[in-house]
């Protein structure tokens, strides 16, 4: 499939020129195209923020809901129609701050969806406040003495919760980001990809150059099925490892454990109550 299949030429893009969201958009279109997933098969669910605007710039079904609340509707979309490829997209504030509770419980629930968190270590859309992943000391109009809280470590938490797919990408590297995305989408269960992304307007510390300098790719010596090794990688912060940190086979998904999907593969919209069965059921209340 061509990446142009996903273009929406009539929609004006409102990201800043040079924003690190552009390479993510490109990589995502490439990943979908290479996986031969047409727009009609893909549903993006997002929250609010710069990252969360992705579905306005990529042709697909979408549910662009509330700040922080992408994962519950994404889970529901998948559980209502498992035939769709469901992708949840949001920023670091969206997914890890306002949406933090859904993040940890979605991992427990394990719906078969992919979560792309655009991690620019700042609040972009609201103009430069600290985010849960901002590094200590990052000065902003709110954190006037620098960020004082420990950065949230999404990968370590995901490994702690035995998330079946945990990865990090540097968005500026489109080809390798695309490959990680493809793996994530293919993987069964909840797949988390934390995407390092430059915000050229509000983050003058964690720039394209910074991300490049402070990351390295995991090589064959890392065994992603080893949870302890994955955790060790997840807590590295001098240079952040890129690639697939953790993979766990065999965790059942949310949908497949629901009786509704054990007996039929028909999307819920196509199902109807069996009136005879229901009448019989009500008759059992005539005691």
């Amino acid at each position, binding site marked *: 499939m061509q990446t142009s299949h996903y273009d929406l030429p009539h929609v004006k893009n409102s990201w800043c020129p040079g924003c690190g969201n552009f390479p993510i958009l490109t990589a995502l279109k490439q990943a979908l195209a290479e996986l031969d997933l047409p727009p009609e098969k893909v549903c993006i669910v997002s929250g609010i923020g710069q990252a969360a605007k992705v579905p306005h710039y990529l042709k*697909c079904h979408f549910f662009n809901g509330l700040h922080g609340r992408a994962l519950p509707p994404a889970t529901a979309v998948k559980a209502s129609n498992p035939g769709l490829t469901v992708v949840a997209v949001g920023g670091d504030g969206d997914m890890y701050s306002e949406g933090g509770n859904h993040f940890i419980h979605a991992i427990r629930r394990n719906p078969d969806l992919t979560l792309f968190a655009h991690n620019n270590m700042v609040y972009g859309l609201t103009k430069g406040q600290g985010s849960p992943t901002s590094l200590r000391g990052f000065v902003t109009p709110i954190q006037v003495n620098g960020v004082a809280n420990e950065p949230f470590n999404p990968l370590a938490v995901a490994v702690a919760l035995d998330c079946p797919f945990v990865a990090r990408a540097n968005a500026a590297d489109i080809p390798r980001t695309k490959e990680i995305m493809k793996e994530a989408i293919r993987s069964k269960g909840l797949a988390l990809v934390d995407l390092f992304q430059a915000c050229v307007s509000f983050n003058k510390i964690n720039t394209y150059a910074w991300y490049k300098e402070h990351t390295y790719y995991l090589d064959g010596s890392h065994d992603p099925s080893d949870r302890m090794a994955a955790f060790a990688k997840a807590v590295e912060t001098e240079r952040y490892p890129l690639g697939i940190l953790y993979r766990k086979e065999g965790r059942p998904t949310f949908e497949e454990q629901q009786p509704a999907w054990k007996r039929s593969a028909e999307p819920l919209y196509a199902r109807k109550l069996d009136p005879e069965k229901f009448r019989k059921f009500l008759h059992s209340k005539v005691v």
Partner: protein
Amino acid sequence: MARVKRAFTGEVSVVLCGAAGKGIQTIEHLLIRLLKREGYHVYANKEYESRVRGGSNSTELRVGAQRIGAFVDRIDLLVPLDREAVEHVRERLTARSVILGEKEVLGTDLPVVEVPLSKLAAQAGGAIYVNLVALGLLASLFGLNREEIMVWVGAFFERKGDEVARRNVEALVLGFDFGAALAGKGAVRIDIPRDPTTKGEMLLDGSEAVAYGALAGGCNFVCAYPMSPSTGVLAALARASNDFDVVVEQCEDEIAVVNMALGAWFAGARALATTSGGGFALMSEGLSLAGMTETPLVVHLAQRPGPATGLSTRTEQGDLNLALYAGHGEFPRVLYAPGTVEQAFTLSRKAFHIADAMQTQVVVLTDQYLVDSFTHIPWPDLGDGDPAPALVRTKADYKRYALTLDGLSPRGVPGFGEGLVTADSHEHDEEGHIIEDRELRVRMQDKRLSRHRLLMQRSVAPELIGDPDYRTLIVGWGSTLPVIAEALPLLKKKRLAFLHFSQVWPLHPESGTLLKKARRLITAEQNSTGQFAALLRQEYALDFHDYVLKYDGRPFSVEEMADRLEDAL
């Protein structure tokens, strides 16, 4: 107090009282079934503390020859299971009340018709059988057939093993025979005509009625976070989920609940969220999202006294304003407030059809009193005539928010047809993409608001009970229907009527005329400020002459309602 010889004809109120864990629920469960099979009309309601063991809880069973739906203070027969029980209900006892039990155990100064409950229980195998002894006692007073109930109760306990079943039946029989002897002596006589139609009716509590009404409306997805008194609905749907392929999820919090329910509707499921006030408050932002995205949604809101945690197992009608205005910005919504278990079924079913057809959110407002009301209802309208889900098969050029003449954009779902389906939380264009344009904003807001008129056209009219030529009108909504209806004839007042609203928003177009016809308006509500009266004042610029309000967490009884209305008249 109480002479001991007492005869009850027409109707009797039986109250069982004791600590949590004493088995009162089992008596209620079995007795109500046995009485209904026998042709009695039965209505049960319970009140309980927010604790798992201990305390004092009670259940009232009203048994009569006609349909009953209200709670009375009056206790005709009291079966207290422990020392605290009598005190717990003491103010409800009258000179006509009969207490059945052991004076020594109860340590009360009131006259007691001696029934050696604990001795008989011990005889059957231990103190835990006391509830079956009580059941047998009552069964015989109601003239049930000894052999039939032995078989029936035996069958009920079968799954707990032969030994348990045997002992329970033995306790039942011991109680039964003691009761027969009492009746023989004429100590207590119950003489109520039977009505064979009860046998064919369904026995449901309010929670089940909401749950099964939802199923009848096509509900195939339920998500919730447990919260009294709304959890019963979730449990009822969970029990039915294997049979009816309902997706069930207990979420991490109520915010997840509302957003998950919206995602489900968006993808073509028909989802119910069930909660109580605190959880509903947490859903506020999500309701606004439903409004903006024009996604259907059904929420069951079982009210309990607030603010905050309040009295978590008690009843109130204190969340009307919350349900009316929760969420930021302005958008239409529908609020149903069923008055009976039967209406709980019907309106929950209807909620799904209206939500679907009108792409709107519908809240079904109940309360602890209604969800814990347990009675039999006539075979309901199953909505076989209801329209099929209003989903369109999308074409390639599909636009989710197309501007149409009637303000309803045909609703597609992802995967059904060739089109792309969107939902957007920002102000958006017809395709669902973000806009800043002022004119389009206004058109979109007008489109959303225009739904209000459509919803008014499809609203449920209020029900008028009493003299159609009224001068004084009592106004009520939701679960107080049976209690006001029963109190009405007790008021010695001419040209009096009662107008009950089972849909509280939007108000049916006739409401204003009906209200304005009255010279005197009195509201009766289970809250401390008269929220529904305020809504009517706002809509029709009218004044209320009196407010009959109650907010101690206990339901209005027929007697209290009659007294309070009498004062207000």
